[in-house]
């Protein structure tokens, strides 16, 4: 079965609003990273976390290994935030990252 479960699968936000994306893990993970896939198909790394919380501009991510989840918060959403967001997590050795199926985000003017 899938080790990384992402929710929601799709999300629409009006410009200026915010929401949270979530990944749940079915096994203990040691690191997580979040990516945005833009309209050109490019995968852009947003965060790498081995624990705790990181923030970058309008984005904030938290990783709780003990409770087996990670979140990505987007605030003040902009049109350029549209795309598909993936989380990927590694269980042993930090080498092999398992991807979730993604959240498709549409920001509406």
């Amino acid at each position, binding site marked *: 079965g899938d080790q990384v479960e992402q929710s929601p699968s799709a999300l629409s936000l009006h410009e200026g609003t915010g929401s949270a994306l979530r990944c749940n893990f079915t096994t203990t993970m040691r690191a997580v*990273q979040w990516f945005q896939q833009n309209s050109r*198909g490019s995968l852009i790394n947003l965060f*790498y976390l081995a624990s705790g919380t990181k923030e970058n501009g309008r984005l904030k991510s938290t990783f709780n290994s003990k409770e087996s989840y990670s979140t990505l918060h987007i605030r003040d959403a902009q049109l350029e935030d549209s795309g598909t967001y*993936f989380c990927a997590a590694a269980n042993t050795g930090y*080498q092999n*990252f398992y*991807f*979730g199926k993604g959240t498709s985000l549409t920001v509406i003017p």
Partner: protein
Amino acid sequence: EAAVTQSPRNKVAVTGGKVTLSCNQTNNHNNMYWYRQDTGHGLRLIHYSYGAGSTEKGDIPDGYKASRPSQENFSLILELATPSQTSVYFCASGEGTASQNTLYFGAGTRLSVL
């Protein structure tokens, strides 16, 4: 800025033919990875490497071989391509340390096997 370059960007192959996808990274990263992306599956790991001369099987290695002749280059080889291997393929590199293994992706290769 991390740089991972894939070639070709698009490829049409015939069933039973041999296909080689190439990846070059200028980051001096230890680890390199090949993923495929299909609708409904996200990204799935095919092969990865810890350094020159090493290749490891990922989650879906059947029908694929990999080659890491140098730190910079990592190839994915389809000896006998099948239509089920039609997909978008991504290469990535990462430092491979416990504290940091951020993955940097190439732009992808769109492969169609007819």
